[in-house]
């Protein structure tokens, strides 16, 4: 069953400048999807559209079989949402925030809320404004997952948290709901988080989906090529190859990213470009990200 279905979705904030452009995305039950992209790539917009916080200017969106704008309450009752800029009312105490959410979600699980509050060492009597950023985020997470939503949308939920808290936060959210078959879509700038937690990776660039495949396919499908720079072997020559995503020369070596499996890369380059002295390595996700969205692809 498709939990989230976006068809030809477009959205702009300023006329003529699409943040998302004709985007298609289908998310099935139980998937954990990491959403990657540079700042302004459209990750937050995509998640907000799915949540019904924004209205798309083209295409259609279905969340759990409903239009998130038309059936907003039905959708929101079944979706958990945490974002980096989300604020909880600072004047409320932790228990009041939880009580407030409990009344809004029919599927609220008191045991799970209690379990999470003790796991996070929450002081229920503290006011939100007295909490640290990480603690406040934990309260937001508790509120987002304690109703056991079939879909969890996390927009940079761990941004600004220290590595230990970030890991605890994400693993709590994703493992907890992942085990019960919930679908999770989360955006992050931390490649290690995505590599550790996601089963599928969607990379956005300038409002369009650039990569959408399983993490294993992404890991195996791209490689870094290192070859000595000579008058015959230049970055321009490598870029001319259809599978080359980026290439640059540094300290007498040409570094290039190819959309090829590392094992078959040497053979392909020798055949297509006549290169002999070539070393091919599989590419860490972070480097691939930098090469793809921040590098020299024309």
């Amino acid at each position: 069953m498709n939990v989230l279905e976006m068809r030809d979705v477009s959205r702009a904030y300023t006329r003529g400048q699409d943040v998302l452009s004709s985007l298609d995305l289908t998310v099935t039950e139980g998937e954990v999807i990491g959403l990657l992209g540079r700042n302004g790539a459209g990750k937050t917009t995509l998640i907000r559209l799915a949540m019904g916080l924004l209205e798309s200017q083209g295409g259609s969106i279905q969340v759990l079989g409903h239009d998130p704008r038309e059936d907003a309450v039905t959708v929101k009752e079944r979706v958990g949402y945490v974002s980096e800029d989300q604020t909880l009312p600072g004047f409320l105490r932790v228990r009041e925030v939880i009580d407030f959410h409990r009344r809004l979600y029919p599927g609220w699980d008191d045991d799970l809320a209690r379990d999470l509050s003790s796991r996070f060492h929450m002081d229920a009597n503290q006011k939100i404004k007295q909490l640290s950023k990480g603690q406040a985020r934990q309260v937001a997470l508790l509120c987002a997952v304690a109703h056991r939503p079939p879909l969890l949308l996390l927009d940079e939920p761990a941004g600004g948290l220290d590595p230990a808290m970030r890991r605890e936060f994400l693993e709590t959210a994703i493992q907890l709901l992942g085990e019960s078959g919930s679908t999770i879509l989360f955006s992050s700038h931390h490649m290690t988080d995505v590599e550790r937690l996601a089963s599928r990776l969607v990379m956005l660039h300038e409002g369009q989906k650039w990569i959408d495949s399983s993490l294993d396919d992404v890991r195996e499908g791209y490689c870094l090529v290192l070859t000595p720079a000579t008058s015959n072997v230049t970055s321009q020559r490598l870029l001319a190859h259809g599978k080359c995503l980026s290439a640059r020369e540094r300290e007498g070596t040409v570094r290039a990213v190819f959309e090829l499996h590392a094992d078959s890369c040497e053979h392909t380059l020798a055949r297509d470009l006549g290169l002999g002295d070539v070393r091919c390595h599989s590419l860490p996700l972070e480097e691939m990200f930098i090469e793809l969205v921040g590098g020299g692809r024309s």
Partner: protein
Amino acid sequence: MMRVLIRHHPLLRPVYVKWMLLVLATGSLWLGIVAMKLHRELFSMPWVPMTTLWLVPALFLALGPHNQRAREFALTLPLPARSVWRAHVSALLLTTGGMMALTLAFVTYGVLGLRSLIDPVERPDVDLTIPLLTLVSHGLAWWLLLAALVVIHRPAVAELPRDRAWYGRHLGLVAAAYVGMVGLGFLGPITALVPFAVAIVLLVLTGRRLPATMSIAPREPAAAATSGARMPLSAMAPWWRRRPVWMTVIQATSKHPALLLVAAIMLILLGVTFSGWTVFSDSGEHLGVFMIPMIAYCLFALTGTPLLKLAVFDHLPLSRSRLLACLIGPQLVFLAVGFLGGEIALIREIPAVEMVTWSNEDDIYGLRMAPRYFAVSWGDPPVNVGPDGMQSTPPNAWRPLGPLGPVLYKPFHVPADASLEFAAWQLARAVEHVYGASLPMDELRDRFLAEQSDGPIVWRNDAPTLREAYPDLRPQRFRGLLPLQVLLVGLLFQAAILVYLGRFRPGVTDRSRKVAFVALLVILMGFYLAPFFFSLAKAGDPAGLNFLILAVSNLLVTVVPGGPVAMWIVAIAVLAVGDHLVRQRFRRAEWPPVREDDGFCEVLG
């Protein structure tokens, strides 16, 4: 160096323009009260203008964000703590002094305007002279003392925590200083030297005792919020302990929840102006319809401000209709409470008010009735023909909207040469019009009126007033007024909120949203102040406009088939259409991400 420190002081950020706007609002409110009461005793007592002058600076000193005495930037400079502290004192005095100066200018100008509004013939007792010397001397001295008491508290700490104790201390100081100011204010301007001297001594002594440098935070840690025990999460709280959703929504979307209390009180007071009490009581007679734009202003300000923070709730399964109800519902309840309060007051107050009287004096001779019972005509006032064939052309035809506008006139005019029959006939008609009771003309003639041998008809010397003679008389209600008021307020509010909601769509910047919000507030406030300014410019007559609307509402009740019921149906139908449009736009609106500085618009409300 001192100038640079003051310019960089956190108190002088442009955002404090909002406190200046609060000054204008307070000035307007007090002017409104003065205009409403027009009461010599009230105004000549020094505490009234003193409170006006003092209210906003005192609020700022009690609740304002002056706990930050210096930025870290200033603390890192090789400057003694005394310089940094002096810069803070200067900034605080500049800010609050500016508020006082603006209030003084606004109120002084306003009082001049009020003076031009008041007819010296009708109200010779009204004296709007400001006791300027007492006002300024005590206002300034106690303000200086209050500021000194605020800044000498832990002067070496650059940023004090704004906790409950902080607020409590400052509210206590403000209350004590206010009591001192009002108490000594009665003793004359010379006593202002006492608080002034104390303030100077405190400031000098504190400045001398400061350590070499200031610290960013207090040395001792703040007390823990709880005893340290982690409270377990219980199951659902019982209903009486649960915080209502609407309250959470309103508090969370307000930057200064304390202002909500002020707003609630204001709405209750405005609700009173909708009630019969305002229509019938002497002091409220001039308010009435003037408050229509002000109520729309408040409704719009209180509904529009939270929109900038509604994103807090956008991901929750709260329907847009429910959110809208959370924003508007409580305001309507407060208005209704005020309205009911006014109606209850009306039950007590009406018997004391005489609505139809008679004057035997030459310059105001004849049947007297409150202008609220005047009639409206679009041409020349109709001529009354009495039972004896006598005709009466109402004099003093009043055109509140200028020479081309409708005419207000007293339909029961009795000229000086009227016969006894004609006077009694007009009196009987007036009684029926005002009280809805048909009293026999002969009885009125014999009991109250007398013929003089060489002069006009007079009220008998031994005759009681009408209400004394007929204690059961009750003035008729203006049954068409309330639906008209509700309709006008509703239309103004709905129009403003529809325009503003139109700014919550893609492509609209925060800045343009704020500009739209402020512009709409200015327009609504303009409607409110327009009669006042027209009056100053001698271009219109606010009181006449008020009575004109009363007369039109009376006329509509008689002209519209179905009377007040039909008027209510029309008003509700029109507002229901507006409500549908507002809901539709509210449902489609996209709330911007919450920003910390969005409290800017709140204080305008």
